[in-house]
């Protein structure tokens, strides 16, 4: 087991596109580290560079104490799980699992022992004699995970391993991966574009955009104080409401009268935007205390909650998360008020968190 240090990683393709732009990551030993971002943000390229499947243009990658820049993938002592599973189609499950071990030249008895262990861990017993064609997507992915396990690598690299599964199975596998990682304590780098997956799995999350790291932090840090407008819009469903505000009389005020407690150290001479989570707002009866008049645009009934879209006279409608018991008629005049603590505040021109 080992941590992974990525220093100033830069990848430029021959056609000139920069996939990864001087990325620094410090992944701790035994950590489940998630790289999250939209497609084309460079997360997969970074992962493939760590795996050795892609050669970086500049920058260093260390796994444990070893500088692996010039090592072929096989010598980096890592295992990777792919989105398309990549099980060898002509081999039965058992041989798929044994394959990397045989390639290493381990004695037969040990190969058998390790395969059995991995099969037990991933509950693959009845599938051992089937070929990939005869396995369901979920089963294939379990086999792919087991194949990564048998190697007992220093680190696992996961490239969107759950993307091809249906929603229910995905949730199951998510739990399974998290449990497995906790049990084995192996460093895991997990790439996904699904923020729910990232939030539920990661010890820490790195949010990437256009080849750069926007923010690294625990799921809570990332959720509560997104480091940039991009992160604010990317994390959370529905995403953060971004409300234009001004500092006046020691308060943050939006044009339409919403009032927030300002964080300390706020610059005065810049255009600011407050990031307010949907659960930090409340729809009230019209005229309630501290509320501003607003109008319901629509309501999404999700069963356990209702998302109200509210027009409060601002530039954009805001989304408000309410318990399912609080019901308002569509198009009704309502009140809107802020109930959370200090919001995150962003500079409009730099798009970064200012306080």
């Amino acid at each position, binding site marked *: 087991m080992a941590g992974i240090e990525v220093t100033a990683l830069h990848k430029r393709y021959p056609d000139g596109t920069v996939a990864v732009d001087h990325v620094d990551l410090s992944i701790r030993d035994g950590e489940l580290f998630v790289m999250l971002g939209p497609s084309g943000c460079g997360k997969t390229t970074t992962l493939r560079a760590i795996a*050795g*499947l892609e050669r970086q243009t500049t920058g260093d990658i260390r796994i444990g104490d070893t500088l692996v820049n010039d090592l*072929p993938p*096989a010598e980096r002592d890592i295992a990777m799980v*792919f989105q*398309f599973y*990549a099980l*060898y189609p002509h081999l039965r499950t058992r041989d798929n699992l044994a394959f*990397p071990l045989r390639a290493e030249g381990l004695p037969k008895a040990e190969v058998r022992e390790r395969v059995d262990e991995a099969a037990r861990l991933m509950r693959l017993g009845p599938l051992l004699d089937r070929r990939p064609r005869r396995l369901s997507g979920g089963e294939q992915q379990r086999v792919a995970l087991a194949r990564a396990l048998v190697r007992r690598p220093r680190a696992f690299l996961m490239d969107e391993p759950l993307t091809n599964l249906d929603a229910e199975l995905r949730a199951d596998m998510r739990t399974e991966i998290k449990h497995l990682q906790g049990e084995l304590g192996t460093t895991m780098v997990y790439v996904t574009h699904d923020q729910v997956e990232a939030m539920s799995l990661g010890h820490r999350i790195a949010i990437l955009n256009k080849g750069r790291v926007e923010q690294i932090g625990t799921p809570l840090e990332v959720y509560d104080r997104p480091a940039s407008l991009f992160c604010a819009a990317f994390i959370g469903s529905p995403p953060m409401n971004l409300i234009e505000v001004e500092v006046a009389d020691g308060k943050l005020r939006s044009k339409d009268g919403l009032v927030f407690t300002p964080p300390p150290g706020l610059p005065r001479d810049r255009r600011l935007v407050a990031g307010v989570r949907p659960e930090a707002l409340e729809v009230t009866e019209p005229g309630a205390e501290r509320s501003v008049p607003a109008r319901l645009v629509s309501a999404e009934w999700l069963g356990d909650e209702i998302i109200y879209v509210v027009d409060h006279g601002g530039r954009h409608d805001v989304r408000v998360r309410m318990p399912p018991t609080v019901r308002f008629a569509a198009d009704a005049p309502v009140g809107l008020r802020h109930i959370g603590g200090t919001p995150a505040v962003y500079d409009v021109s730099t798009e970064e968190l200012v306080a």
Partner: protein
Amino acid sequence: MAVSVDEAVSTRPARDRTPLARRFGGRGRSVLEVALLTVLAVVMLFPVLWMIETSIKENRDVYAIPAKFFDFQVTLDHFKDVFVASGGGRSTLSAAFLNSVVVAGASTALATVLGVPAAWAYSRFAVKAKKDQLFFILSTRFMPPVVVVIPIFLMYRQVGLIDTKLGLILIYAAFNVPFTIWMMKGFVDEVPAEYEDAAMLDGYTRLQAFWRFTLPLLLPGIAATAVFALIFSWNEFVFAIFLTSSDSVRTAPPAIAGLIGGTTVDWGLVAAASVVFALPVLVFAYLVRKHLVAGVTLGAVRR
């Protein structure tokens, strides 16, 4: 050139298992369409039928007027004449067939050996100006090959490749490589690159990963591509007749054409030789018919 390829496909369309009536949308229409198709089939197939008939007719029946369709004497003499010379020993036609086998086989093998790795490289690697390179490769097939016969003839004369099998093998391979690259690139694209990535993580080099994992999955595609290349080389006439002159080098198409001319034409022999000539192509096309269709429709559906 490309025409021969298209023909090889269009004469054996994919079998459609939809009931006839439903496919044609109503019985009335189906009757009309079947009738039209039958007429078309007769027109298309009659020359082939006539060739086969002529090849098994006695000579007097071949020249009979009015032509005999059914009541003729069946003989296999013409087929014997294809392979055995009149005075005993091997006929020149049989030597020509052997040359065809050697030339078509070797040029196909060469095109495959060169084209498949190239297709793999174009599919897997970030190559500079990849699209332009692929377009350039394809552009060599834009002109009819006959355009370059004279330059090739002059070049071959300089380097001593005139009237050699090697010369034919090289020129056919040159025409087949672009085709192989393009067709195989489609097949390689369909094989997920993850197989190779996984194999590389498991301890193989890139080439080993290609050889051990991707190549076996490509075999059906290679077979289909090779058959197209084989059919092209086998049928090729223009270069064969310009670049060869001796019986020991000449391939079957010019050899069969050579039977026509002179004062009398032994049509029975011509027909028999043509049947023998057509058989391998038919057999091959039949064997890989599924892949032929797959090759043609490749990439139409995103996986």
